[in-house]
């Protein structure tokens, strides 16, 4: 089996590139399996992780994050900073310079006009661009010469690496997408399925929501890469099946995002065909506490700041709920190596991660009971604590998945030990995370007392993420239930810190501010962080060069992957 493959690969490599690049395609075929199948290869028309990561084999940004979360220049010659003059002193202008000699996979040169076009494409109001937030406050994108682009912001941007940075904001070819702007964007099926790119591979066949076939890009900038001549990128099924295909049957070389019980994964790894790798980004599984009253009797004022929650507005209750949880056990059961207990909502990068809240890691049932006793919550005849006729009875909802169900069951039991009653509810993810204002079950409406889900921030700057919890940003009827401040938290001091962060350029000071805000949120227990979740993937033992990256596309360095013999 190996020999014919190799021969075909060699022949293919010789065909595409001739003698000078004889090394390209030397390792034959690569199989990648994602249990969610990509629907489209244009990241601006789909924000889904599966689509963005699939597209990252073909389309590339000016700069991206490496596996440690550092910004590295990619299509740009260098990363612009204030120090090297690439970012203006008033923090309003960024100048990017492209590498010289870059070619699209169709042979035409990559120019600054393509970069400018990419911005126009996304900023068109009729296009419904998913990555619009990357272009926040951009007032102009201009090409000053063939290789230089100037991005101007309306306000000073201490962190200007939104546009053209990371897998979510790659450069599109102007020639291919020129007729696809705005309302016409969805009509360009051919362009959306087979974008012309600068990346190591190009698409030969795209079957939406099923499989992508790719081959090495003959005009990739490094003549020795990629090592693989062809790639099959299969989608569909479930995480267990994807893990099995790599770890147990060896049909595929790489499987993405294997959210499985740790012992199941370890058993599969024991088959010896592959290795499980994990890496941590900023994803935190958390409980969100509803600080407002979700009672159905309130009608339109349900879960709005007009009515504080009958008992969760008491800080002692929130703290006791957090103290009763054994985060170490949650990690052990649900995530294994792919999780770490955490007490922070900003767990990384290192400079932003606070170390002031570690006391939550130890479970303290007695302390929680004492706290509730002191606050006047006494066990009633049924063992459930109450005060002034209010019982500590919680509706706890989350989106349906196996690990979250186990978490719900465990947390319910721990809370019952401190005299709190819990009713569990599961909601289908497409409803829970959907924004349908007609549905009562969205996480934004939050018609429950506690809910659990995971969230993270993109790239390495937490400012927009922390900005979500400012006063006035809570979902409410007037905002069509849109807004990121799901716990309905409001603290003037918090907002003041946010204001300062928006004006601060110095990295050390920004980090200190971010840590302070994180500490406010978790000490008030508006959010109860549980687990810092990593990404878990698996690769065949014969596949080398995998550097799992949670800050960017997971397969960001697929050009460097190779077969180990």
């Amino acid at each position: 089996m190996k020999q014919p493959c190799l021969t075909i690969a060699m022949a293919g490599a010789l065909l595409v590139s001739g003698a000078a690049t004889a090394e390209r395609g030397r390792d034959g075929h690569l199989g990648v399996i994602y249990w969610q199948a990509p629907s489209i290869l244009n990241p601006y028309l789909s924000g889904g992780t599966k689509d963005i990561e699939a597209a990252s084999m073909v389309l590339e940004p000016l700069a991206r994050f490496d596996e440690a979360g550092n910004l590295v220049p990619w299509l740009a010659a260098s990363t612009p900073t204030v120090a090297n003059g690439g970012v203006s002193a008033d923090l309003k202008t960024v100048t990017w310079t492209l590498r010289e000699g870059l070619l699209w996979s169709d042979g035409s040169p990559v120019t600054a006009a393509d970069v400018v076009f990419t911005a126009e494409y996304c900023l068109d109001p009729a296009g419904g661009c998913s990555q619009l937030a990357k272009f926040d406050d951009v007032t102009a994108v201009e090409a000053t010469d063939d290789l230089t682009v100037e991005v101007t912001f309306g306000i000073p941007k201490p962190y200007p690496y939104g546009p053209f940075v990371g897998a979510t904001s790659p450069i599109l070819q102007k020639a291919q997408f020129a007729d696809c702007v705005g309302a016409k964007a969805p009509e360009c099926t051919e362009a959306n399925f087979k974008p012309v790119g600068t990346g190591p591979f190009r698409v030969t066949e795209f079957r939406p929501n099923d499989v992508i076939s790719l081959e090495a890009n003959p005009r990739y900038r490094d003549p020795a890469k990629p090592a693989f001549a062809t790639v099959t990128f299969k989608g569909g099924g479930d995480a267990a099946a994807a893990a099995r295909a790599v770890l147990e049957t060896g049909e595929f070389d790489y499987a993405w995002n294997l959210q499985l019980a740790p012992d199941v994964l370890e058993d599969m790894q024991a088959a010896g065909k592959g290795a499980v790798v994990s890496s941590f980004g900023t994803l935190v599984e958390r409980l969100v506490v509803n600080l407002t009253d979700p009672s159905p009797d309130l009608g339109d004022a349900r879960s709005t700041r007009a009515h504080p929650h009958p008992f969760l507005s008491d800080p002692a209750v929130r703290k006791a709920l957090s103290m009763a949880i054994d985060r170490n056990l949650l990690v052990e059961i649900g995530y294994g190596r792919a999780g770490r207990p955490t007490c922070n909502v900003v767990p990384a990068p290192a400079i932003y991660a606070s170390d002031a809240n570690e006391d939550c890691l130890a479970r303290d049932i007695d302390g929680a009971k004492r706290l509730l006793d002191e606050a006047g919550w006494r066990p009633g005849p049924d063992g459930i604590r109450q005060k002034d006729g209010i019982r500590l009875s919680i509706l706890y909802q989350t989106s349906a998945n196996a690990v979250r169900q186990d978490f719900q069951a465990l947390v319910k039991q721990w809370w019952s030990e401190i005299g709190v009653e819990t009713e569990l509810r599961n909601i289908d993810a497409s409803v829970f995370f959907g924004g349908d204002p007609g549905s009562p079950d969205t996480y934004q409406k939050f018609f429950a007392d506690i809910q659990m889900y995971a969230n993270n921030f993109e790239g390495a700057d937490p400012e927009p993420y922390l900005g979500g919890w400012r006063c006035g940003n809570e979902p409410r009827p007037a905002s069509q239930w849109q807004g990121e401040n799901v716990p309905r938290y409001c603290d003037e001091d918090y907002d003041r810190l946010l204001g300062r962060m928006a004006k601060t350029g110095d990295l050390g000071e920004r980090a200190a501010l971010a840590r302070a805000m994180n500490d406010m949120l978790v000490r008030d227990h508006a959010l109860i962080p549980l687990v810092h979740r990593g990404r878990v993937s698996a690769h065949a033992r014969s596949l080398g060069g995998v550097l799992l990256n949670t800050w960017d596309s997971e397969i960001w360095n697929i050009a460097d992957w190779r077969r180990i013999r």
Partner: protein
Amino acid sequence: MPVYTVRRILVAVPTLLLISLILFLLLDLAPGDPTAQLPLTIPPDVKERIRQSLGLGEPIHVRYLLWLQQFFVNEPLHLLSGLTGLDLAGDRARVISWQTRSPVVDIVVERLPQTLWVVGLSYVIGILIAVPVGIVSACRQYSWFDQLGTFASMVGFSVPTFFSGVLLIVVFSVELGWFPSIYDTTHKVTDWNGFLVQVRQMAMPVTVLALYNAAQISRFMRASMLDNLKLDYVRTAWAKGLPERTVVLAHVLRNSAGPAVTVIALGVPGVFAGAIITEQVFKVNGLGQLLIVSIQASDIPTVQTLTFIFAVLIVLFNLIADLLYGVLDPRIRYD
């Protein structure tokens, strides 16, 4: 009978229109959201703009009429243009999926082969197993064959495919390594080896589905054979000394095929609907997987188009079943 057929077809048109309206209302009322699968890092106002760009800002009757026009006028025109090479359709908008931003009908056509191969073949095999098993079980009621058949079909029906599929994969892919656990939809059969590869990758999903189908159909077959075996005309035939083969195959089978025919006809649209769970388990990615993925993503144009195509097939095959009833049993009068 021809009058009846024509009348049924005429009634089918308004029926299908009504079904399409009810489907549309149902999908609109369902609390899903096409932006639900996007990461939470995409802010709500951007999601709102995405919804607007999908046309969700329009009132429901406008969206419904638009779909009607796209499906009943524009799609056939595009099909005609494709067949004749003439440009009849111009730049008329087709039914576009919200997930892939490509024409839904193209995706359906792309996926039809693997669904027909796997689900269709398993259906045929299921019938081929079920009919003889049902007949023999009935003729030899409570024999060891009947008991075994009953046991096997009840287990086959009551063990869900999400379990039996995984069990087969663990045994035959992981332990024995005989069959691939992932179906390759890009595989093209060009030679004998290619055909063997295709057979190997179809073996497990087809087995799982065939067992499930056979279990169901054989039960109806057996029950209705048993009913007929007790009737007077059968006793008469026995009494006349006709051989068993003639009695069973010429008399009883024809008269007891009714329920099985109904169940089989009801199942044919299901073949096109694919087998959602089995397709997921074996990564066949046919129409069943397309439907479930689209429902999860609240891709209304795709779900509406797919379910409507199924509705057409359901109406069609129910008509066929009714006509077959008339053929099998001339006593039935529709007119």
